[in-house]
């Protein structure tokens, strides 16, 4: 464990100093935050099987985050390891999309959020597993296998909830309507994406990814007899460190042990 280091977000006008580091933080933080959110269900699942499922998926996601943040730390070259990046950064330096930090809500919110993210993640890993950055391609190929299992699980639940009872259907539709506004950000393309394409040969076509994602989501939403929201007022900001208030609360819980006992081992 390296010494804790605290930093605030860079001013907006500053060009991205280390785009590959920034890019890996985005990938790593998405999974770290969602993994922590899922772990909050441990011991609270609606049924025993689902308690185990959500905890297992949390474990996989935190594993992916660990690999990604370790690689980010290497690229940064400041001696920060995965733990330093996970536990000793403030909310404003987190680069996760807003979708993954949205509180768990009821089971429908958790499952719909998971499905929307899984579909995105599987498509992204498939593309990244063929990228020219060897380290990232290896993480992508490995994570893809695990996320495919998650996607089947979450998509089956979306169908079951949507095409279930009046209550589960209403909650699933409500969850979809609430979360939809956070999906646009997943497919944003900015200077960081341009820079990693130029410098590290990580070129993701976000428009193509978005259209594949939409096809997949539409198919499941239709099978779930739910209605795809048409509200296009997308919320964004996570990739630049502008988060909802709930991220800070989540990080306080997630980081308290590491910060109270820096460098502890057991």
């Amino acid at each position: 464990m390296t010494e804790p280091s605290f930093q605030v977000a860079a001013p907006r006008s500053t060009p991205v100093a280390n785009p590959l580091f920034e890019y890996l933080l985005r990938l790593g933080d998405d999974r770290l935050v969602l993994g922590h959110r899922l772990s909050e269900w441990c011991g609270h699942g609606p049924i025993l099987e689902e308690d185990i499922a959500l905890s297992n998926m949390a474990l996989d996601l935190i594993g992916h985050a660990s690999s990604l943040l370790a690689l980010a730390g290497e690229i940064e070259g400041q001696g920060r390891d995965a733990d330093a990046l996970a536990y000793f950064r403030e909310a404003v330096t987190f680069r996760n999309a807003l979708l993954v930090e949205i509180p768990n809500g009821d089971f429908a919110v958790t499952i719909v959020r998971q499905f929307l993210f899984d579909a995105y993640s599987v498509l992204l890993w498939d593309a990244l597993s063929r990228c020219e950055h060897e380290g990232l391609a290896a993480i992508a190929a490995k994570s893809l296998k695990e996320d495919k299992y998650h996607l089947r699980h979450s998509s089956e639940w979306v169908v079951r909830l949507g095409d279930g009872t009046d209550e589960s259907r209403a909650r699933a539709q409500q969850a979809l309507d609430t979360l939809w506004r956070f999906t646009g950000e997943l497919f944003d393309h900015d200077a960081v994406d341009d820079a990693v394409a130029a410098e590290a040969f990580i070129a993701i076509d976000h428009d193509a990814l978005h259209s594949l994602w939409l096809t997949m989501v539409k198919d499941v939403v239709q099978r779930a007899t739910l209605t795809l929201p048409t509200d296009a007022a997308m919320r964004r900001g996570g990739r630049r460190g502008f988060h909802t208030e709930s991220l800070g609360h989540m990080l306080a819980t997630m980081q308290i042990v590491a910060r109270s006992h820096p460098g502890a081992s057991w």
Partner: protein
Amino acid sequence: MLSPDEVYGVLNSVMDPEVPVISVVELGIVRDVAILNDAVTITITPTYSGCPAMREIEADIRTALVARGVHDVSVKLVLSPAWTTDWIGPEAREKLRAYGIAPPGRAEPQGLITLTRSRVAVPCPFCRSNDTRLQSEFGSTACKAIHVCNSCRQPFDEFKAL
């Protein structure tokens, strides 16, 4: 100094801490053994990305080799090529079955998938019946799912194909 075969012999005695009937070699996670003078480097690959047993396995490998007089041991972790249950051989599969864990089926091809999976009944490791049902897609460890046998009424773990 041990020969590569002898090192593999030692590694064959290091059991998976979660499934203590098959060794780390049988599990397919030992990717390379390199010996240079007195130093031994073992390259392993994780089963699941978040598998908490990996740290345990690394320590167990080190302990086993130190016990055989090898003091300069490095354990290196690689992610590529990604681990697959197809690397678990027929003998190890039989050991899993005898232990009460249904061995993994064939892993899916790389790349994208259809969302609706074709479910093939997993044969019961106890009575070999095919009349079984999936109870839970996730189980006691990242690598397992839970099924129930309709014939002998026994719940059992399945080593998930990956």
